[in-house]
C-alpha cells in the first residue's frame, strides 16, 4: 500500500521566461531578482511571477543580491556592478572595468561588493563607506560575520577578515590555492572555502584551527550553510555532500551524500532549519532532500524531483513553501510545497 509516490513532483505556482540565460537568483521579502548573463536583471513578484521592474548592468551579470527589505538590489558582473532602488527604480551603474564576483548585504543599509582585488562597502545608493586593501587576486566571494561587523573575503591564498573601516585584515586564514566559494556558519563558529584544488578548507574561528576535506573529484565552487549553521552542503562531485558541523565539527566524520544530478549547478537550503535542501543539476534535474536524515556516510534519496528542459542555473527559496528554479534556456519556475515544514 502506498500513500504518495516518493518521487512525486511539485505543483507549479507560476512559470515565466526571461530573454537571456539566467545566472543567478535572489529572493527576499516578497521579491525575486533574476540576473541574466548579458546583464539584464528582472525583478518579479515572488508569489505570482509578475514583473515589477528591470534594470541593466552593461557588460553582463554574474550574480544578484536583493537587500533583506527588498528595497534595493545589487547586481555584479565581469566589468562592474549596478545598484537598483525599488522606490523610483533608479539604477546606479559603476563601470569599473574590474571583475565583480559577488554582492552580500550586511543588513538593509550596507552592502559589500567585490570589485577586482578589493571589497567595497557601500550604502544602498552606492556611497562608499570603506574598502578593503587589495587581496592577492581578484576577490571570488564574500560573507559577513558578527551581524555585519566583520567581512570575510576569499581570494587566492587566503580568506581574510576585515573589521569595519579597516582596510587591513584583522585576521588572515591562509591556505595556498584558489578559493572559489566562501561559507560562514550563521553561528559564526566556522569559515569554509571551496577550492580549485578539489577540496573544502575549514577554519574554526575561535582558534583558527584548520581542517581540509579533500578527495573531491572536481573543484568545489558551491558551498552553503543551513540556517542553524550545523550543516554544510557542497558540490565538487556528482553527489552533493552534506557535512555535520554540530558539536566538535566534521573532523573524522563522513558526509551524507545526495545523488541525483550529473553535475551539481545549484544548492539552496530551505529557510527554517529543518535540514531540507534543494539542489539542481546540469542535466536539468531539481531535487529536494531531507538532507540531514539518516546516519553519517549514508546515501540519501530525494523527497521530490523535477525535470527541466535545460541546465539548472540557480535555485532560491522565496519563503519555506516556494522554491524557484531558473534554467539556462530562460525559463523561471516557482514550485509550491505542500506546507512550510514537510517535503
Amino acid at each position, binding site marked *: 500500500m502506498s500513500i504518495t509516490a516518493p518521487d512525486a513532483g511539485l505543483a507549479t505556482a507560476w512559470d515565466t521566461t526571461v530573454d537571456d*540565460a539566467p545566472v543567478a537568483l535572489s529572493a527576499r521579502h516578497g521579491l525575486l531578482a533574476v540576473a541574466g548573463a548579458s546583464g539584464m536583471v528582472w525583478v518579479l513578484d515572488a508569489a505570482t511571477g509578475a514583473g515589477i521592474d528591470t534594470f541593466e548592468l552593461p557588460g553582463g551579470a554574474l550574480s544578484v543580491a536583493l537587500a533583506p527589505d527588498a528595497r534595493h538590489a545589487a547586481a555584479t558582473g565581469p566589468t562592474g556592478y549596478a545598484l537598483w532602488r525599488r522606490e523610483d527604480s533608479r539604477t546606479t551603474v559603476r563601470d569599473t572595468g574590474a571583475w565583480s564576483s559577488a554582492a552580500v548585504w550586511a543588513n538593509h543599509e550596507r552592502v559589500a561588493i567585490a570589485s577586482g582585488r578589493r571589497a567595497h562597502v557601500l550604502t544602498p545608493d552606492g556611497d562608499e563607506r570603506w574598502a578593503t586593501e587589495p587581496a592577492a587576486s*581578484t576577490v571570488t566571494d564574500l560573507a559577513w560575520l558578527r551581524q555585519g561587523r566583520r567581512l570575510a573575503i576569499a581570494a587566492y591564498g587566503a580568506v581574510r577578515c576585515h573589521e569595519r573601516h579597516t582596510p587591513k585584515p584583522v585576521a588572515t586564514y591562509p591556505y595556498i590555492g584558489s578559493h572559489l566559494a566562501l561559507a560562514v556558519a550563521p553561528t559564526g563558529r566556522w569559515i569554509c572555502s571551496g577550492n580549485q584544488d578539489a577540496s573544502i578548507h575549514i577554519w574554526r574561528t575561535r582558534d583558527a584551527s584548520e581542517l581540509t576535506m579533500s578527495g573531491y573529484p572536481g*573543484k568545489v565552487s558551491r558551498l552553503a550553510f543551513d540556517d542553524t549553521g550545523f550543516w554544510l552542503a557542497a558540490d565538487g562531485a556528482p553527489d552533493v555532500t552534506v557535512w555535520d558541523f554540530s558539536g566538535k565539527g566534521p573532523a573524522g566524520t563522513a558526509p551524507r551524500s545526495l545523488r541525483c544530478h550529473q553535475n551539481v549547478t545549484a544548492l539552496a537550503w530551505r529557510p527554517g532549519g529543518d535540514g531540507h535542501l534543494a539542489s539542481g543539476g546540469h542535466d536539468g534535474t531539481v531535487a529536494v532532500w531531507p538532507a540531514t536524515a539518516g546516519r553519517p556516510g549514508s546515501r540519501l534519496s530525494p523527497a521530490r524531483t523535477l525535470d527541466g528542459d535545460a541546465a539548472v542555473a540557480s535555485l532560491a527559496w522565496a519563503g519555506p513553501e516556494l522554491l524557484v528554479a531558473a534554467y539556462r534556456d530562460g525559463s523561471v519556475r516557482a514550485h509550491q510545497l505542500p506546507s512550510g515544514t514537510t517535503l
Partner: protein
Amino acid sequence: MTAQPPDEPRDERTPVTVLTGFLGSGKTTLLNRILTEQHGLRVAVIENEFGEVGVDDALVLDAKEEIFEMNNGCICCTVRGDLIRILGALMRRRETFDHILIETTGLADPAPVAQTFFMDDEIAAQLRLDAIVTLVDAAHVLQHLDEVKPEGVENEAVEQIAFADRIVLNKIDLVDETTIAEVTARIRAINSGVQIIPAQHAAVDLPRVLDVGAFDLERVLADDPAFLTETEHQHDTTVTSVGIDLTGELDEKRLNRWLGTLLRTKGVDIFRSKGILALAGAPRQYVFQGVHMLLDGEFGRDWREGEERRNRLVFIGRNLDRDALERGFADCLATAGAAA
C-alpha cells in the same frame, strides 16, 4: 545492416586558440585580421590589454594575468585563475561561440594557460585547446633568444617557441634570406616538428592557425611530416626536441610506469609531450599529449588491416637526455618484456 561507428568521433567542444608572442610580434594585428576577415565564425576574444581590438561581431573580454598554484606546491599545476573565471562566465552566456581566442601578454608563460585546460573539469568538458600559436618577429627574435637570463629564470622567447603548435614567422619582409634561414634553424632546434608559417603583417591563411586541431595528434602527424625530423643543433641550446619512432606493440603497464615516473621526476623540464602509440591488444591507436606533468590520452582511430604497429612520440623540453628517453621507451615494448 549494421551501423558503422565513425572512425573518429566528432569533438563537439568549442575550440580555443592561444596566441603568444613578444610585444611587437604582431599578435594584435593577427587578432584584428581574425576578427575582421569574413569567416562567418562567432568569436569571443580574451585579451590582456583591453581596447586594443574591438569589432562589433565579437565579444571582447579583458583578462588580468593571475597565476595560481595549487596547494600541492607542484609548479606544473599552476593555472590561470583569470581564465578559469572568464571562460566559466563565457560558458554561462546564452549565445554560443564557434571559437575562443586568448591573447597572452608578451612575457606570459604558456604553461599555466595550457594547464588550465587540463586542470579544470568544467572547462575541459566544454572547451578544447586547439593550438598554441606563437608569433615570432623575424627581425628581433634572435636577440630575444640569445638574451641571457639569471639562474632559474626561463627565457620567455624560448618557452613560447617550445610550447607552440604553430609558429607565425612574421615580418619576413624586414629581414634577408640568411636571417630567415637562421631564425628557422633556431626555431627547429627548440621545437623540431612545429609548422612554421612565414608572414608579412601577420597575413596568414586563417585555417592554418584556427581550428587546426594541434592537440589532436592524428592531425599533428598527418599535417606535420617534419614532426620527428632530426635537426642539426647549430646552437648550444638547452631546450630541444627528442622524437622517437619505434615499431612494435607496447606493454601498457610498463608504459604507464615509465611515462608516469618520467613526468613525475622530469615534468618540470619537459614542456610538451605528444605521441601516437600502439598498445598490445588494443585495436585502436592510443593518442596522448601533455604539458609538463599533466597528460591526457585517449584512443584514436582503428589500426588499419595490415598497418604496421608504430609508435611515434616527441618530447620538447630542457636538458632532455635522448639516449635515456629512447632506452626507457624501448623497454616498454611488449617484446622487450618477453626477452627480460
